[in-house]
Structures are given as C-alpha cells and as structure tokens.
C-alpha cells in the first residue's frame, strides 16, 4: 500500500510539474494574431470565404446548393438550374422553387469576426492596405447577403459577432429586415468596398471593379423587385404588407440608378470586350470563356482539375468520342436556339426546307450561337459531331404534318419514319448520326436536343482527359458583357433608351448578329401580362442569349417576376434532323422533347420560403414568404 502511495505521489508530482510550463501559445495553430496581423494571414482567412461564395457555377446543385469540395460534382452539373429552368434539356430536374435552404450565417459570422476584430491590428498595416482589406471583407459579406436577398427578400441583418452562450433570446433571435433595407445594406457594404479598395487584384480576388460588378448586378435585381413585384398580385400577403417581401415601387429608380452608376464605374477599369479571335466571331465567342488572359473577365472562380475539378467536359459531350465518363447529360433546347439568328427550317408554304447536308443548318446562323453550341459537322478533340434523328421515306406535306414529332401523326407511322440506334441502317443508309439521336436510349449520352453545348468546353484536352472531376476551366463570375447588359437594362428602366441600345449594339456587334442595333420600339409588349416596352423586352432577350448557361437565367426570370409565366407548361423543343430517303435531302423538324416533359413554376417561385428549420429556432422570422 505504501509503495502504491509513493508511486502515486511520484506520478502525481510528475504530472503537476510537467503541466507547469504548458500555458503557452501553441505553435501549430493559426490564431487570430497570425491571421489578422499579416496580409498573408488575412488572405488565408479570406480564401475559405471566397470558396463558399454563392456562385451558381459548374458545381451548383439545385437541391443541395453550392457544395464546395463535395467531390460528387457530376451529380451537381446534371441537376443544375439550367436544366430546371428549361435552358437545357436532358436529365429530368424537377422544379425546385423552394431552393435548398441557403442560410449562410456561419460564413457571415466569419466575416463579422474579421470586421469587428481587425481594427485591433490596425497598427500593423499602412492605411491603404488596412482599408482595402476591410473593404474586401465588406465585399464578401455583401456577396453572401445578396445570395440570400435574391432568394428570400428581407433577411435578418447581422453585423455583430453574436454570443450564443450569454446572449439573450431577444439579441439572438434577430427578426427579418425589410427587403428594401436588405438591399440597402448590400449597397452600403459594396459602397464601402468600392471606396476603399484599389483597382487591381490577383485573379480570383476582389478589387474595386469586382465590387462594382456585384453592385451592378445586385442593384439591378433590387430595381426589378421594386418595379415588378406589384404585378404578382400578392398585396394581401402578410410578408408583402410588412415589406419583408417586395419593395415599394417608388424605390425602383433609386436601385436602377445604383446599378447604372456601378456599371459606369466598371467601364473605367482595364476591361474590354473579348475580340482577340476576330474575324471569326464564333471562335472568338467560344474562346472568351477559356482564354485566361481575356480582358473581358472581371472576376473568376478558379479550378485546377486536381484539388478542385469539375465535370463540365465529361457531361456536355458524348462518350466515347469526346469524353470518357457517363456521357452527355444535357443539350440546348430549340426554344433557346431560336432566340438567336437561326436559319429558317420551314419555307413560306410551311414545308420543311431541304438541305443538301446536315451541317448546312449552320449557314446564316448567328456566330454567337455557333460559339455557344456544337452542331453537326463541328470538330472537337479530333472527331466530328454527327447528329441525325432518323429517316423519312417520304415527306411531301408541310412541317405541321409531323405534329411536333407525335407518334400519332400519320406521316410518322413506323413504315414512313424510321428511327433507330447507333449502327442501324435502312436500305444501306445509317438511320442516326454517330452521336444521336437514338430512339432506344434515354437522355443520357444522346444528342437529345439535336445539338451540344459549346460554351465553356475546353477543346485542348483529349477525350480521355474529359472525365470526372478533371475539368479545370475557371468559372467567370463577372465579365464586361454582363455589365453592359446590366447597364443597358438599368438605363432603359431609367428612361435612357438610346444609351441602353448603344450597349446592346456593342454586344450584338461582337456576337455577329444580322441586325446589330435594333430599332427603338416603345410600343407595348404583351408577352407577360404586364406592360413593358418592346425594346425593353428585346434587352431582356439579349440577356438570355448572351448569358446562356451562365447561371443567370433562372434569377432573371424570377426577379422580372415572370418565372411562373415563362415556365407555364413549358415544353422544351428539340431540333430533329431527318434524311428524306425519296429525295436524298435533309430536313429539320421542330419536335417536342421525346419524354413529353414540361416545366412549370408556380407563382410562389418569386420567393423561396424561409427555411422551416430556421423558423423553428427563431419565430421572429415569420411571417413566411408569400404563398409558402
């Protein structure tokens, strides 16, 4: 017993003495002084925040969100907002108007920690650097907030670092601010960022012009909300009456003016529209998204194909000729293709135009569309795209005889319309192209819509390299083309109609359109049941064309408050090429997608619901958004 006691005392003594000197700063942990006390430390701190910015890029997944580093990005791409909103067609992505419950107050807290504590380290910096870093933090916070504002309208505005242990429920359960105050808060943050940052930064990091670009986009969103929410007819809803969803229409011009001014500021920066590959405007438009030295890029999100890769190349082009994963998951819809200058596929009598070759469809096509999509005859990675749906033995009548591809149409009887799979032949003539459109296969790895996406495709890699998580194109978050479109829309809304069309002309000049400057037309467009001038409608359509599959369209139609009208039993159409056997010519038929699938967004899509899990924690978030 005594022995044991001695041992115990010995051990106890050892433990106590060894604890003696341990109250030191651990050397292996980066604490606040290391992170906030040096520029490199701050950069490290910000890197994690940049990584989580709400950017709807290659890895955005409509049901689970931004998913940074998830490593299952191929699922994300085929479940993106482009599919959901009918810009592309392939894999079935159900309408997800309730979003995924984006609620980034953890990231906002991290920014607030910096904003609140950074002043302690002021003496370690010169004034300009100190202000620039603080401005960068405000830019980051604004980015997170606009990611929520465009979904929910008004949200709680948290600027302090909350103390979850000692804080009272009154302090912690922050109620929603009005939508007006939320957008104004974003404005103030960005104003501070613009005023305090310089005009240059390393790629992937913000500077004065990046902040101005975010200002341009988000203030345009706010202006639309203020001007068009009234047409939803939701005045009776509690959240609308309290200003939590919707902004008074009298504020619209205030926000459009902010967007306009921000766009003008960006133009003072070192940016210009990409024209390096002139005179080939199609090639030029395609390269704009790949050229790392593009003067049009303002801000990008970087990928390296190693630690952070995505699957864009693997999922946009068919396997095995162009990629080596599951193969193509989506294609451009005919509805979208026909928004561009598109050759006529029917003649004056309504009969299908006869083409000598399938690739003749590109004659007279807008170069920008050729830079956006691959059609039959285009080359990629050493192979040629070959796309054909089938063979008509005879086709004598008008295109309407085909009844949008319906099997019930007499001309589509199986004896007259031959469909098939790869390698199948009709009297020695191949029924389909090498890459579709196959009848015996679903949407995956099939030219389901009659064309493929070209925008952002990297032609320099081999088919073997086009595989899962290996794509390394950067995502362009802001480019001057978008800023021009923002400014044009804001200017038009402010009544500067001629100036607005000046910007549209620049965009269409680069695009190679037949008509670069549309005539000013102030007559009313009745497309959406609320009055807008036809030229403003044209500016909106130009945005859909120029920013096709750039993550903009869904937010645009929501914030113009027309998502429920554009996507009202919206049938994605496809471009089906047939060989007419009796004539030896090709025709193109406008068909409804073969799944007979339509897309419908309810009116409630104008706002996402505040996540129920958050309301359960904080009932001050009530009332819920309209129609939820």
């Amino acid at each position: 017993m005594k022995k044991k006691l001695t041992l115990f005392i010995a051990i106890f003594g050892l433990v106590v003495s060894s604890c003696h000197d341990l109250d030191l700063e651990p050397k292996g942990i980066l604490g606040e002084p290391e992170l906030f006390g040096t520029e490199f430390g701050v950069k490290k701190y910000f890197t994690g925040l940049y990584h989580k910015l709400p950017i709807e890029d290659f890895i955005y997944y409509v049901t689970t969100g931004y998913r940074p580093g998830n490593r299952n990005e191929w699922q994300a791409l085929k479940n993106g907002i482009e599919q959901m909103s009918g810009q592309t067609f392939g894999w079935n992505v159900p309408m997800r108007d309730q979003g995924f419950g984006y609620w980034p107050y953890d990231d906002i807290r991290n920014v607030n920690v910096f904003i609140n504590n950074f002043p302690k380290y002021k003496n370690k910096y010169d004034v300009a650097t100190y202000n620039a870093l603080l401005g960068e933090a405000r830019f980051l916070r604004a980015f997170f907030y606009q990611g929520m504002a465009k979904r929910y309208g008004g949200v709680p505005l948290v600027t302090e670092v909350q103390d979850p242990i000692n804080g009272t429920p009154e302090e912690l359960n922050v109620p929603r601010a009005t939508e007006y105050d939320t957008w104004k808060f974003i404005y103030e943050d960005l104003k501070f960022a613009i005023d305090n940052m310089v005009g240059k930064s390393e790629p992937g990091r913000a500077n004065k012009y990046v902040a101005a670009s975010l200002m341009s986009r988000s203030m345009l969103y706010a202006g639309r909300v203020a001007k068009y929410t009234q047409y939803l007819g939701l005045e009776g809803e509690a959240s609308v009456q309290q200003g939590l969803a919707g902004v008074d229409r009298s504020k619209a011009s205030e926000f459009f003016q902010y967007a306009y001014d921000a766009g003008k500021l960006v133009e003072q920066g070192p940016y210009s529209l990409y024209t390096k590959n002139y005179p080939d405007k199609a090639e030029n438009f395609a390269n704009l998204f790949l050229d790392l030295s593009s003067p049009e890029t303002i801000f990008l999100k970087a990928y390296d194909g190693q630690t952070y890769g995505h699957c864009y190349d693997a999922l946009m082009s068919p396997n095995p000729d162009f990629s080596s994963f599951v193969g193509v998951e989506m294609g451009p819809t005919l509805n979208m293709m026909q928004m561009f200058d598109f050759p006529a596929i029917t003649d004056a009598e309504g009969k299908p135009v006869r083409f000598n070759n399938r690739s003749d469809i590109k004659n007279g096509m807008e170069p920008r569309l050729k830079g956006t999509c691959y059609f039959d005859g285009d080359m990629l990675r050493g192979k040629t795209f070959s796309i054909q749906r089938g063979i008509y033995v005879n086709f004598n009548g008008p295109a309407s005889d085909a009844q949008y591809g319906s099997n019930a149409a007499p001309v589509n009887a199986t004896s007259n319309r031959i469909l098939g799979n790869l390698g199948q032949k009709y009297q020695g003539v191949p029924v389909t192209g090498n890459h579709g459109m196959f009848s015996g296969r679903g949407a995956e790895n099939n030219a389901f819509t009659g064309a493929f996406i070209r925008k952002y495709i990297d032609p320099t890699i081999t088919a073997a390299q086009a595989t899962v998580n290996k794509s390394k194109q950067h995502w362009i978050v802001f480019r001057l083309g978008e800023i021009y479109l923002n400014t044009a829309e804001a200017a038009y809304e402010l009544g500067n109609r001629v100036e607005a069309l000046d910007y549209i002309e620049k965009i269409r000049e680069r695009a190679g359109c037949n008509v670069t400057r549309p005539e000013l037309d102030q007559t009313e467009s009745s497309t959406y049941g609320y009055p807008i001038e036809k030229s403003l409608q044209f500016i909106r359509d130009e945005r859909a064309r120029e920013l096709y599959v750039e993550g903009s369209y869904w937010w645009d139609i929501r914030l113009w408050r027309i998502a429920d009208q554009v996507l009202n039993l919206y049938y994605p159409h496809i471009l089906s090429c047939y060989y007419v056997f009796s004539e030896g010519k090709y025709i193109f038929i406008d068909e409804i997608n073969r799944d007979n699938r339509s897309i419908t967004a309810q009116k409630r899509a104008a706002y996402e619901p505040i996540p129920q899990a958050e309301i359960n924690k904080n009932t001050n978030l009530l009332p819920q958004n309209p129609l939820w």
Partner: protein
Amino acid sequence: MFLASCQEVDNWDEPNARLYGNVIDSYTGQNLLMDQNDWQIRIIDRTWEAMNPGTVAQYQSLAVQRDGVYNNSKLFPGTYDMIPYDGPFWPIDTVKGVVLKDKTQQDFTVTPYLQVLNFKATLDGTNLTLSCTVKAPIITGLPNLYEVKGFLSLTTFCGNSNYINIGDYNNLRKSINKTWAAEVGTADSKDYTLGPYPVKSGYTYYVRIGANVNALSRRYNYSPIIKVVVP
C-alpha cells in the same frame, strides 16, 4: 427490456377532435366545384400560444376534397383561426376564434372569381371539342384573365390535380393573360371553344373546363364534369 421500454406512453391526449364543413359557392349555393387538394384551408391553433407564452403558432393546412367538403378528425381541441387560402375566389376574412371541441362544423361561403357555364363536350369520331361560357360576375378589381383550359382524365377525378398531362392536350388551352376589358370588353361573359382533342376509341373520358385569373397561385374555377364514352 425492449418490451419494457415500449410500455411507456406519453402524457398527451390523442388529437381526437373533428373539424369539418363545406366550402359553398355564393352564386349557386352549392359546394364549390373543385379538384381534390387544389388548395387548402389554413388553421392556426391559438390555444397553443396561450398555453405556451412567447411561442408563435404556425398554420396547418387542411385538404379540401373535390366535392368542396373538408373533414379532419385528428386535431387537438382548442381555439382556432381559419381561412380558406389561395383558392379561386375573392379573398375572405379570417374566421377567428373557432372553438373546436368534440365535433365542430364550420362552413365557408366564397365568391368565385369566374364561373364556367354552359359546358358542352361534343364528340365527332375521335375528336372531342369542349365549349363553355366564362363569366365574371365581378369585373372591378379582377386580376388578369389568365387561361381557359380543358382537362381530360380517364378516371372520375378530373381537374388540375388529375388530368392527362401531355403536350398534345396542354397546347390546346387558351392562354390569355389580359385584363377582362382587353379580352372580353364590357360584357360580363365570353364563349370559348377548345379543341379538337384527339381521343382514343374504346375509352371513357371525364372532362371539364377550368378558367383562372392571375391571382395568387392561379387556381381554377371549374365546370361540372361530363363523362364521354368514345365508341
């Protein structure tokens, strides 16, 4: 041990009160024509708030059946606020303080935006044509007339929740989205003919027409359902 741990019951009474009633069309005095679960009645349990100070009760939704009847027999007794929400009728006030005990009937009378009258289904071979008169008894303040749509179904359930949802049929709907004055003028009604819908020989269809205005979620006002047997 598992048996033992299952023996415990909680100390709550089961929700055993029944709340039921009709949604009545003020023009016809009959139950509103609708499809099942087109829209819901929202109820808020105010007793919960009284028993738990500081909490905010959130609404529950009661489904309404296609005959305009609702019936829920698994609710907690208490005092409720009730409102038929987001239906195809002019907004009505919340009915406050409905005391729910054992069985409580609460009827609602609503004023539909539109009436779909004189509904006819004409069969010519395998082509089905639908016609009706859309009437707006109240034009002042009426949101845009949005669309007139035929619903075809192979079961007796027919309406926006149950119909043959294919492009061939959907594209035959009449999309309008104009003010009543722009679409109809000063009259209070207008005739519409939809179709012909290609139908299949040997099938029995149940058909009706729905019309809606651009209010809230654009629910439909319906005609009665007609049974069409295609020989």
